[in-house]
């Protein structure tokens, strides 16, 4: 779980409730041996500068590029897009729904993840120009707010803030599936993994 800045504690609570062992990532060495990754909500400018300062961009690209299941929320979506880490074939439009007074809640259905998800949008981005491998799972006012590219899921809203477990459940499920496909291996300690 990337822990440079933002609401990573809320992600930790959810993941631990789901039985995962969680590690906070602030420097590249923290990434060693992770089976999954969460990039939390926060301020995307602060997070971008933090990734730069810590030299995390290369190691994150390597880890996620190798197929490590990843969940990004809000600023996490921005970090993953083609203008930042380049791991998700979308371009995020920052603060696209407007300033804080335009922040909102809305109920959403996410294809393949769950229906009736109560989604909290805070100065939220949306995703534009999805590439061929990107599946748009949900939209608000015609704008993509949930996208998936293989095992990378990114959303504009914050399931971590209201105890919505299904997105984190999806992440843990993908980690388990990837492990099963790789065959038996020793129990790993991992950020965002059981």
């Amino acid at each position: 779980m990337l822990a440079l800045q933002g609401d990573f504690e809320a992600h930790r609570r959810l993941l631990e409730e789901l039985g995962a062992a969680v590690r906070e990532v602030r420097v590249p060495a923290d990434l060693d041996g992770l089976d999954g990754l969460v990039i939390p909500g926060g301020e995307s400018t602060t997070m971008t500068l933090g990734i730069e300062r810590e030299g995390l961009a290369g190691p994150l690209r390597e880890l996620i590029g190798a197929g490590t299941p990843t969940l990004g929320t809000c600023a996490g979506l921005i970090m993953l897009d083609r203008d930042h880490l380049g791991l998700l074939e979308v371009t995020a439009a920052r603060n696209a729904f407007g300033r804080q007074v335009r922040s909102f809640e809305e109920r959403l259905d996410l294809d393949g993840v769950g229906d009736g998800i109560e989604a909290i949008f805070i100065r939220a981005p949306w995703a534009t120009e999805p590439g061929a491998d990107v599946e748009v799972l949900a939209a608000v006012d015609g704008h993509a707010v949930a996208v998936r590219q293989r095992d990378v899921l990114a959303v504009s809203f914050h399931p971590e803030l209201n105890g919505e477990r299904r997105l984190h459940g999806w992440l843990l499920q993908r980690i388990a599936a990837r492990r099963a496909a790789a065959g038996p291996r020793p129990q790993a300690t991992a950020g965002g993994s059981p």
Partner: protein
Amino acid sequence: MAHVSRGVRERSIGRVKQEGTFAVKSGLAEMLKGGVIMDVVTAEHARIAEAAGACAVMALERVPADIRVAGGVSRMSDPTKIEEIQAAVTIPVMAKARIGHFVEAEVLQALEVDYVDESEVLTPADEANHIDKWQFTVPFVCGATNLGEALRRIGEGAAMIRSKGEAGTGNVVEAVRHMRQIGGEIRRLGTLDEAELPTAAKDLQAPLPLVRDVAKAGRLPVVMFSAGGVATPADAALMMRLGAEGVFVGSGIFKSEDPARTAAAVVEATTHFQDAERIAAASRNLGAPMTGIGMDAIAEQGGLLQERGW
């Protein structure tokens, strides 16, 4: 936030967009966690703060150290200044309104600032009442010196709390006092049984449902930052170690010798607050921090700002 279930009004949500819910208001504070919010007076300051990694800026007409020296009545910033700052950066822009001055708050909401700070740093407009913050779509942050004050503000609708400290001093002693006070009172609530909570609420002069929430959760129902006197990277890390979820730095940045480097160093120390080597690295060769003043000297300069608000 799931744990704001009792005592804080919530609206149920449906298929249509709901703006200004408490989840949305307190949620922005969640996004700011682990970050540094910097006081800025001009667009140029705001750019420096953003480039250094600030997670938000606070627009005000003068930094607290200058307010302290200038005396007189201190008010909300000129809307033009706020708009210039909003145009200069993409991070959230907060602005201060006087305690009880709900029209200044309405003006700031109309300007679409991201957070209103109902602040003791400005001259209070109402000596009895704070703003009824439930009436607003824009979220509020308020200062507190103790748990009762924090819970009264949350009861009035504040979606974020900052321990007050003593603004404009460059002296962290009051920030430490208030953070320890609030933390200690929260821990004490956790030791009480249900029958003891109504008396605790009476003693704290705080709403009982919120007292119950705190006793159960062991934390405030909203995010709490520290403020008022942070001047160095080590000061910021100290406040994080004492339980702050982020820090406000006022005069400490732009009253230092090298604001850009000081700002970046405070951000770095706030992220790595548990790593003394990283704090040491961030603290090297920053030039002089703001001068700072002792609490005994403050009486001569108009007294303590923290005593404003009740």
